[in-house]
């Protein structure tokens, strides 16, 4: 008996020693929008590790990570919610929860995953473990700007009715707070990393609207009303994104709509502190994690270009053309590198953010969003 047990123990030990443990802290996933696949990438090695297939229609897809950085919840355009296990590199679970989804969020405790939908409009909330639906919140509107907020809350906004709702999930039933008059056709929103300020961008009027979520009864606060007054409105060939807040020290940087500029806003007073003219309609204006630079990409047909703005002088310090259709950018958590997805080149391109030198590239099929696992630990991402 004894020798057998010992033998078993020894063989267990050996197999454990051979199984390579997977550390996920420097991994990431890249959405391949046309093929319904994601590529698992390694930040440190600047390499692709695996491709995971079968995620459905991934145009405009995004994802969030579980707190342990093992699972990604991928929100597909076709309403698919797919739980990807990046340790085993497989799909752990998948449900098609609605006809037409637009984004998602994970609760602060990592237990709930929420998806916002265009069709039928509203938010559905799922158990992060099983993907069983735990709450269905119809809104009768296309629902955008869904983020998590501290206190097991989700915040989201209605395109059609201009309301923001706060769903408090800390009790047995969702408790909804409705805030009216956020403005004409909010198209996206962001929450600051401290979970205090929620800002929606508006399509139907020049301006943005903020909410102070630390307030017991948050009221809409107009930000930069009429920022484009007197300027010619230009056609918008792609709606800008506010996801991925760009807070640079004490200011926000936000893309204007219908104007080729980014807007600087004081984070404490929510008043304008400046503008920087840009090459085209900005899509993403993203701050390097230290806040010293903001990188901007643009809408079609100027989407081959990136501009880098110094946040101290608010001037453009670098401009280059990585290639056709730069759709997304993701910084390494400490900002030393930026990864760009260049859709029509079929590449992820990697740059040093100090020297702007190109460090490498990775093949990917029509890549769009790039998501590093470090997002797991940030509110609103």
């Amino acid at each position, binding site marked *: 008996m004894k020798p057998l047990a010992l033998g078993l123990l020894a063989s267990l030990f050996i197999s454990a020693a051979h199984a390579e443990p997977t550390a996920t802290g420097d991994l990431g996933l890249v959405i391949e*929008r046309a093929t319904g696949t994601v590529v698992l990438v390694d930040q440190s090695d600047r390499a692709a590790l695996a491709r995971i297939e079968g995620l459905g229609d991934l145009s405009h897809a995004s994802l969030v990570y579980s707190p342990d950085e093992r699972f990604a919840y991928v929100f597909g355009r076709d309403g698919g919610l797919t739980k990807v296990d990046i340790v085993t590199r497989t799909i752990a679970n998948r449900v098609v929860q609605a006809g*037409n989804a*637009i984004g998602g969020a994970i609760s602060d405790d990592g237990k709930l995953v929420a998806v916002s939908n265009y069709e039928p409009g509203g938010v559905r909330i799922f158990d992060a473990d099983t993907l069983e639906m735990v709450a269905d919140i119809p809104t009768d509107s296309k629902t955008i700007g869904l983020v998590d907020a501290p206190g097991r809350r989700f915040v989201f906004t209605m395109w059609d009715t201009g309301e923001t709702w706060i769903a408090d999930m800390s009790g047995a039933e969702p408790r909804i707070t409705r805030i009216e008059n956020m403005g004409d056709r909010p198209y996206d929103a962001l929450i600051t990393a401290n979970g205090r300020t929620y800002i929606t961008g508006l399509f139907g009027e020049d301006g943005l609207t903020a909410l102070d979520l630390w307030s017991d009864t948050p009221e809409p606060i107009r930000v930069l009303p009429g920022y484009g007054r007197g300027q010619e409105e230009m056609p918008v060939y792609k709606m800008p994104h506010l996801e991925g807040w760009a807070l640079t020290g004490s200011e926000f940087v936000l893309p204007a709509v219908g104007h080729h500029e980014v807007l600087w806003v004081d984070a404490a007073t929510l008043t304008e502190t400046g503008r920087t003219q840009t090459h085209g309609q900005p899509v993403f204006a993203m701050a390097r994690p230290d806040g010293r630079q903001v990188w901007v990409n643009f809408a079609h047909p100027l989407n081959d270009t990136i501009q880098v703005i110094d946040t101290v002088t608010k001037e453009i310090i670098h401009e280059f053309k990585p290639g056709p259709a730069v759709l997304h950018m993701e910084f390494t958590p400490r900002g030393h590198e930026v990864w760009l997805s260049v859709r029509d080149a079929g590449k992820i391109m990697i740059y040093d953010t100090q020297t702007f030198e190109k460090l490498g590239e990775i093949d990917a099929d029509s890549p769009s969003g790039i998501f590093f696992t470090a997002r797991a630990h940030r509110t609103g991402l």
Partner: protein
Amino acid sequence: MHKFAALMVVAGVAHAGGVTDPDALARLVHQDCGSCHGLTLKGGLGPDLRPESLDHYSVDVLRDVILDGVPGTPMPPWRPLITTEEAEWIARYLLKPETP
């Protein structure tokens, strides 16, 4: 590859008189119109653009919507970026994706 491209050009010109690259136009429809209407045109911020949803429109009406947009909505005017012939090709393509 070159031969194929040349054939496509001829076919395009014969059909719509001035469309130089149907491949590029089809790509524009799915990628760039798709950013609002969905990659498969099933709808998103903008409505469903599949043939079933558009069949009550004529080619001319669709062409003009594409060129001029829908003022007061996010549907932008494409006139600054594409020609009338290209807009007409896209209108046909939306109505009949197999044989635009």
